[in-house]
């Protein structure tokens, strides 16, 4: 098949896969705008993977559940504030903004707490016992399932009825593509949070402590850095950003939040982190946005059913050919 790939391409593909280059070109700008808005969610979640990897060399697979707990936190905040499930709310603008900020705070706190608890309950005892790396990994996967199943038992296997605080409304056009109020809000808010995280890591004393532990934990200790506190801090930062991402997620997706909703998103955010260079903060930002747009391009080129495949192909290709990602591993080297 590889041999006559040009013919296959010319004919528009074989029966199980087809390439629609015209659609890719037509929808290019639409996909770019859309992908950046959705990619900002990946970026926010990817930071959690990358920071924890930076200091512990651990892929925290339970980070997807840190995220989904935040999504439930935001959802129940909406309910608590009196929004009806399954509808599009029509509150005045100021009230909507206040409520979104409230939900953002709750989601961030929920995710932050889950991340912190995970570190204290699951990972720290293992560090004390000097457990091998594989044990951490298995624990992470186990914690991920445990939280997922707990949520399922508490709620049920079906998605909650979605609540939309804002109806999507086109604001303006770029390159002939309309940008909605939701996309713009999410993109800008995510960007602001990412910039805050970046300057915290790169410009503050505590951030320097995190980078020091990532680069050389023993020497960091010799300079007086409390490694345990740094580890806690990275879990909290990762959790807070995942919580924010969770709110942006339920604002953008039409379907309601569900117990295993973190799974796919988590893997994609992890892919974004690997794509940019795991352990590298700016890599996570870049990887998230890139994956967001790649996914959309893939969807246009190959068809909707291929959307998720794109992310996994990206992951596998990166791991095979450039495991250090675009910007390379190292939290510290992502300086200034």
């Amino acid at each position, binding site marked *: 098949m590889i041999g006559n790939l040009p013919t296959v391409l010319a004919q528009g593909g074989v029966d199980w896969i087809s390439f629609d280059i015209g659609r890719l070109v037509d929808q290019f700008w639409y996909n770019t705008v859309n992908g950046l808005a959705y990619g900002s969610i990946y970026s926010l979640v990817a930071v959690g993977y990358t920071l924890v990897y930076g200091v512990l060399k651990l892929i925290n697979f339970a980070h997807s559940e840190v995220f989904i707990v935040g999504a439930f936190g935001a959802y129940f905040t909406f309910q608590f504030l009196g929004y009806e499930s399954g509808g599009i709310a029509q509150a005045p603008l100021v009230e909507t903004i206040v409520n979104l900020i409230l939900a953002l705070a709750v989601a961030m706190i929920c995710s932050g707490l889950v991340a912190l608890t995970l570190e204290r309950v699951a990972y720290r005892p293992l560090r004390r016992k000097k457990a091998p790396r594989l044990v951490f990994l298995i624990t992470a996967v186990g914690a991920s399932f445990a939280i997922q199943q707990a949520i399922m038992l508490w709620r049920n296997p079906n998605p909650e009825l979605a609540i939309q605080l804002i109806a999507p409304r086109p604001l303006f056009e770029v390159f002939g593509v309309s940008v909605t109020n939701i996309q713009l809000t999410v993109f800008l808010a995510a960007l602001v949070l990412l910039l805050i995280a970046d300057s915290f890591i790169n410009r503050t*004393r505590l951030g*320097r*402590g995190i*980078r*020091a532990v990532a*680069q*050389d934990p*023993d*020497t*960091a*200790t*010799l*300079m*007086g*850095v*409390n*490694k345990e506190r740094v580890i806690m801090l990275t879990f909290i930062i990762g959790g807070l950003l995942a919580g924010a991402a969770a709110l942006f997620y339920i604002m953008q997706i039409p379907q309601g939040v569900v117990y295993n909703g973190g799974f796919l998103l988590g893997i994609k955010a992890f892919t974004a982190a690997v794509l940019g260079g795991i352990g590298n903060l700016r890599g996570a930002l870049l990887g998230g946005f890139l994956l967001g747009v790649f996914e959309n391009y893939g969807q246009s080129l190959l068809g909707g059913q291929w959307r998720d495949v794109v992310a996994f192909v990206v992951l596998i290709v990166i791991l095979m050919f450039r495991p250090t990602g675009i910007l390379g591993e*190292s*939290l*510290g*080297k*992502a*300086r*200034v």
Partner: protein
Amino acid sequence: MTLLEISDVSVHYGRIRALSGLSLTVEEGEVVTLIGANGAGKTTTMRTVSGLLPVTSGSITFEGDDITRLRADLRVVRGICQSPEGRAIFPGMTVQENLDMGCYTRKDRAAIAEDYERVFSLFPRLEERRTQVGGTMSGGEQQMLALGRALMARPRLLLLDEPSMGLAPQFIQQIFRIITEINEQGTTVLLVEQNAQQALSRAHRAYILDAGEITRTGTGAELLADPSIKDAYLGVG
């Protein structure tokens, strides 16, 4: 006054004993050097004093206080700073950021500013290279950065683990000169060296470490003059 006292300390890596009943003292204002062959336990001793390794028995006191079980980062706050073996600077941080790491635990801004001036006058090169990334500097420059970083902690006791390792002769001379200068400015130094000739001639007192045990001690001059020491440790001189 005795600044550091290690009494009868044993340290193990798993079942392997690296230090057996080691005792040594460092008086305030001294340069004390610890000499020994590769694998004798010098680095282990330094890491134990800094709290990176737990003792299996024995005790460590600092300024009369028992610090045997004190957390490593709190020992830095107490005034023990180590520049570890292999000039472990933070490779992805700039010169400035590396120096900032030295004063990570300090809050006394005025004194920190003084110390920057002091470090920059000892190592003018560092001031020129403030924004250079540490990992891209030459071996000699990195060692100066490591030393400067340790000084930024304004330690009561400065631990130096083989600061001359792998350096060109002119850098070695400079490093030892600076160690003497730092000491004359009032910092107590515990120095681990393979370059026994230089270390003994700079140190007030010295300990010889062999297979995890102290086998000889005396003033630097005494050991320098001792023929058996000469044979064992000053061969290449």
